[in-house]
Each structure stands twice: as structure tokens, then as C-alpha cells.
């Protein structure tokens, strides 16, 4: 009952917050893309080698980019209301279809990397805090600081050298073995094998972020009065750390995890390009290079929506972890 009320309150608060943010993002992205020097019509005309005034004008009219900016924005908003993200001149399909085809792959990569980062980060952080100042802490601190400093894509490349080139254990390209036509368990394990290196590359930086944060939060919690209360009850130290300390320490960790979701999705662009992962991130780069702003606008919007939705989930997790949130 109480939990249900709190979840409802959290959802309401988030919705009130997210509405204007969504609208702001739409307008902001649209304005950015209006500043683009070249557009799809120009690029395609140039590539086709038939850059006459007439063909360009015809293409511009076909895509509706010869109209005033405000009209284009209103058109776009109108289409958005019908979940229509427009048509990609470059890929010759609807933007919504294009993105929806890529979205699941990106989500899979993102969720795997986030889960990996949270689990490893929290475990490392808790271990570091438990042995604070002694050798497990020192060793882990150095490792974590290194991962905090290395570019994720470079970690990925080095992992490719080790696990794909030298050892030949894991594939380094795409999200499945092309033409293998696997089914059932074989397919799942093939997909998983393809997922390992990209997810590790994407997660490496965030493992370090969460480990550092968890360590600091756990050490902070140790000083609290309720920790002495828990010890005064005769509870086992492990139980005290897991039930009393970690639960409190996770509150700031999840807050920061929410703030990093955008960065995680941004990091996916490089990692997806590097591993030939057919996701939204790689689509971003293709759209930029092809100056296909319908696609770019769609990707930007959708990735922002993904961040908003993920933030709602984090907020709910937060409300579950911290009963003070969402209660009047």
C-alpha cells in the first residue's frame, strides 16, 4: 500500500518533470539541426554527380526543407504526435523504422554495460571500503583509477588484441556470426559472445566511477550512529555491511548512475562503431556523415527519450532504496 503510493508519487513527480524536458529537447535539437551547413539534398545531389539547380530544388521540395523554419518545426511536432519521425532521404526508409530496427541492439548493449558497471563497481567499492587503507584497497584503488583514466574504446581495442587476435576466444565484430543461421542455445551463446567485448569496453569507465563512489559512500556510512546501533545488537559484521551500510550507500550511487546514463549512451556511439555493433550509436555517426538530419534528429530525440525513461526507472529504484523519497 505505502509502497504503491510512493511509486505513484514518484511517477507523478517524474512525469511533471519530464514533460517540459521532452519539449525542450525537441526544440533544442531542431534548432541545432537548422544550423547545419549542408543538408541531405545537397549531399545526395553532389554524390549523384547531377548537382543542377533544378534537381537540388526538386529534392529540397520533396523533403520539405524549402519551407520556413517554423513551418518545418510545426510540421515535425505534428508528425511526432503521430509517432512519425519523418522519412530518411539517405536510407530511403522511414526514420522510425530505421531507428526501431537499431534500438533493441543499443538497449541490449546499454543495459548489459550498465548492469555490469553497477555490479562490478559496487562490489569493488564495497571491498575497497571494507579493507580501507590496507592492501586490497590500495591494489583495487590503483586498478580503478587506471580504468577511470583510460578511454573506453581503447580498453575495447586492447581487449580485441588480447581476446580476439592473440587468444581467439571472442569475436570482435558485429552482434552475431553472419550467415551461421544458428538457433536455440547456439544462437544465444553466439550473441552473448559477441556482446562481451563491447559491453566491457562501454562499462570500463563506469565501473571505475561507481567503485569510487561506492567506496566513498560506504566509508561515509560507517561513521553514522545507526551503524553503532546495529553493532550494539550483536549482528554479524557481514549482515551489518550488507543490510545497513550498503543499502544506504546505494542511494548516492544510483543518483549518479542516473546522471551518467546520457554519457553511457554517448559512449555507445564510439563502442558501436568500433565493434560494428548495429545500434543507434553507429546510426548517429552514419547520419552525421551523410548529413541526414531527419535521422539525426530522430536519433537525438530517441536517445534523449531513452535517457528519460531510464531515469524514471532509476527514480523508482531510488524510491525503493530510500523510503524518504516520495513520501509526503
Amino acid at each position, binding site marked *: 500500500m505505502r509502497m504503491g503510493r510512493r511509486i505513484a508519487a514518484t511517477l507523478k513527480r517524474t512525469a511533471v518533470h519530464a514533460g517540459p524536458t521532452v519539449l525542450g529537447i525537441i526544440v533544442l535539437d531542431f534548432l541545432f539541426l537548422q544550423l547545419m551547413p549542408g543538408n541531405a539534398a545537397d549531399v545526395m545531389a553532389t554524390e549523384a554527380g547531377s548537382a543542377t539547380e533544378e534537381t537540388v530544388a526538386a529534392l529540397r521540395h520533396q523533403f520539405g526543407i524549402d519551407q520556413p523554419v517554423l513551418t518545418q518545426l510545426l510540421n515535425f511536432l505534428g508528425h511526432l504526435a503521430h509517432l512519425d519521425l519523418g522519412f530518411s532521404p539517405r536510407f530511403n526508409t522511414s526514420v522510425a523504422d530505421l531507428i526501431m530496427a537499431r534500438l533493441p541492439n543499443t538497449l541490449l548493449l546499454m543495459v548489459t554495460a550498465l548492469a555490469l558497471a553497477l555490479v562490478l563497481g559496487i562490489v569493488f567499492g564495497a571491498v575497497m571500503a571494507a579493507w580501507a587503507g590496507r592492501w586490497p584497497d590500495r591494489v583495487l584503488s590503483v586498478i580503478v583509477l587506471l580504468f577511470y583514466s583510460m578511454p573506453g574504446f581503447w580498453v575495447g581495442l586492447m581487449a580485441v588484441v588480447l581476446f580476439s587476435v592473440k587468444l581467439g576466444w571472442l569475436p570482435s565484430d558485429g552482434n552475431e556470426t553472419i550467415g551461421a543461421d544458428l538457433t536455440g542455445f547456439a544462437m544465444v551463446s553466439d550473441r552473448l559472445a559477441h556482446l562481451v567485448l563491447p559491453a566491457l569496453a562501454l562499462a570500463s569507465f563506469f565501473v571505475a566511477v561507481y567503485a569510487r563512489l561506492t567506496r566513498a559512500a560506504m566509508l561515509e556510512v560507517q561513521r553514522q550512529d545507526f551503524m553503532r546501533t546495529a553493532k550494539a545488537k*550483536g*549482528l554479524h559484521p557481514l549482515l551489518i555491511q550488507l543490510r*545497513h551500510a550498503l543499502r544506504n550507500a546505494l542511494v548516492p550511487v544510483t543518483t549518479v548512475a542516473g546522471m551518467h546514463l546520457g554519457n553511457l549512451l554517448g559512449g555507445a556511439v564510439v563502442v558501436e562503431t568500433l565493434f560494428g555493433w548495429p545500434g543507434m550509436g553507429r546510426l548517429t555517426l552514419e547520419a552525421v556523415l551523410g548529413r541526414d538530419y531527419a535521422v539525426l534528429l530522430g536519433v537525438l530525440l530517441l536517445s534523449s527519450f531513452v535517457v528519460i525513461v531510464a531515469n524514471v526507472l532509476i527514480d523508482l529504484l531510488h524510491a525503493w532504496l530510500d523510503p*524518504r523519497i516520495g513520501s509526503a
Partner: protein
Amino acid sequence: MPLLSVDGLSVAFPGHAAVREASFSLAAGETLALVGESGCGKSVTAFSVMRLLPPNARVVSGRILLEGADLLALSESEMREVRGAQVSLIQQEPMTSLNPVLSIGLQIAEVIRRHEKLSRKAARARAVELLDLVSIPDAHRRIDDYPHNLSGGMRQRVMIAMAVACRPKLLIADEPTTALDVTTQAQVLDLLDDLRHRLGMAVLLITHDLGVVAQWADRIAVMYAGRIVEQAGIEPFFAAPLHPYSRGLLGARVDVDADEHYSTHRLTEIPGNVGSAAGQAGCSFAPRCPVAQPACRQAVPPLVGLGDERAVACPVTVSSHSSPLLGGEAR
């Protein structure tokens, strides 16, 4: 045999002795008030009994006997059997001493399930009973509340429920009402006293508030700069405090009923402060003492028994104990 007997306890932090040669004992069912200014070592003494000192503190010497068994000699896991079951703790700050992210029901039930073989359901039922016992209205509904739903007084009641859950023999209450307003203070202390009688617990009450001591304690031990300087029964103590520091304390005391904020300016009328005692030879109180003599600065005065459970660590007082006029000269 006393329930608890602390014998020559010394506790040190790096570069600073917090408790020095403290000895006192506590009979079953009795309330002993440990009194002194903040920083005098009374909380450290209490935490030593539970062996919950901060990581940088160390017991240098002494014994802490609970029913004859030395707690300092127990292994950590043996000690965990004692904590919460035989000795339990109530802390000063009810706002921070409960875990904010766990329901009060869970926090009460976990100590029960730790020390008694009870099912989750039975432990929960016991927790409801305990909330009832500490007079929390609507206990069966309140049990799923989180600490932030409760007022300071209510939280301290929850702390008490948690502390008495396994019927400990000894309850250590570290300034249990300092953070509460005066009306709530009296209610909480009445509740503690009532439970003490009903459950037959001894209470080690740590406080700086002589009004609290006068009303709820059986005996008093006064601490100054890490040492116990006087021990006495409540009536003789308030009739005639012997140690010059105790006399100063009583002189500094404003009438309880007259001023609810008196605790904020409690000891200011004794010139100087505890800090001035650091690192000097002889009696720590000598620099602030109105009756100090040259001998007081030479050697630490021992706690001398005067019979009738009374002891004082002041040679000036001991030598003139026959003269009851001293109490009047203190100011």
C-alpha cells in the same frame, strides 16, 4: 557479586588518554548515573563496556566483568552474543541512531531473530508487542513505518523497544534524552524507569544533567577528565557533594522546574574548562579548584572509600570529611 564491575579501566586515543583508571560497579536492577562534562570520558567508558570503541581507540588496561566474566577477554563472536542480548545500548541522537532506509519493524525484529530462534512472523509479532510496551499508539500499523515518519520522542521509544527486546540484564543509555524537549524527556525517562522495574534491568545512565540524575538514578559516579572523582548514593550526594568538582556542578545547577533550558549553560560557572587539565601532573581539577593545595599538583589523588558506598578522590575533602561545613564554603 555485582552485575557489572569495571575495574581500573583505561582507554586511550592516539596522543590522549580518554579514560584513566576508572572503577565502578553496578548491582542488578540498579540505575547508576555516570555524570560529567562533554569530553570527560563517560561515553567512551560506556562504549568500552559494549566493546564498540572507535577504531583508533584502545583499551590500555583494566577489566570489565559482567556477572564475573571479563568482557575484554571474549572473542569478537562471543562478544556479539552479549551485545543486544545481555547488554544493550540507547544512543543520544534518535534522529541518526535508527537506520533511515529500514522499517522500524525490521530493525526491532532483527535483534530478536539474532538472539532467539524465532520465525519471521513470530519476531514481527514480538516487535508489535514491544512497540506497545513502549507506548507507541497503533503499534500494529506503526510497525511498517520508517524512522522519518516518527517524531524524535517516538524514535527514542523505538530505540528503547529495540534495546529491551531480548530482556538484557544491563541497559546503557548514553544521554538518551539530551536531544529531546523537556516534556518528552520526562516521558522517555519515566518509560525507561518503568521498564527497568518490570524487566529487572540495571541501567547505566550517562548524562550531564543533574536534574535527570536526581530524579531517576540510584547512585552517581562523577567523572572529570577521564577519572571518576566521586561515587555516592543519590540522597547523600545531593545532600552534601564532597568533591570540589561535584560541589561546583551542584552550584552551577539551576532549578529544574524553573528553566527548561538550563542544560545549555550547565557548567559554565566553574572557572576554566576540562581542556586546562591536559598533560599536567597531580589532580586534573586542581587548576579550577577553589580549595586546591600545593600537594594536589604533585600526585593523582586516589579514590578513597568513606563507607556507605561513598568514595571521593580528593585529599583535601577526605582529610576534613568530618567537617560538614565544607559544602558551604565551595563558592
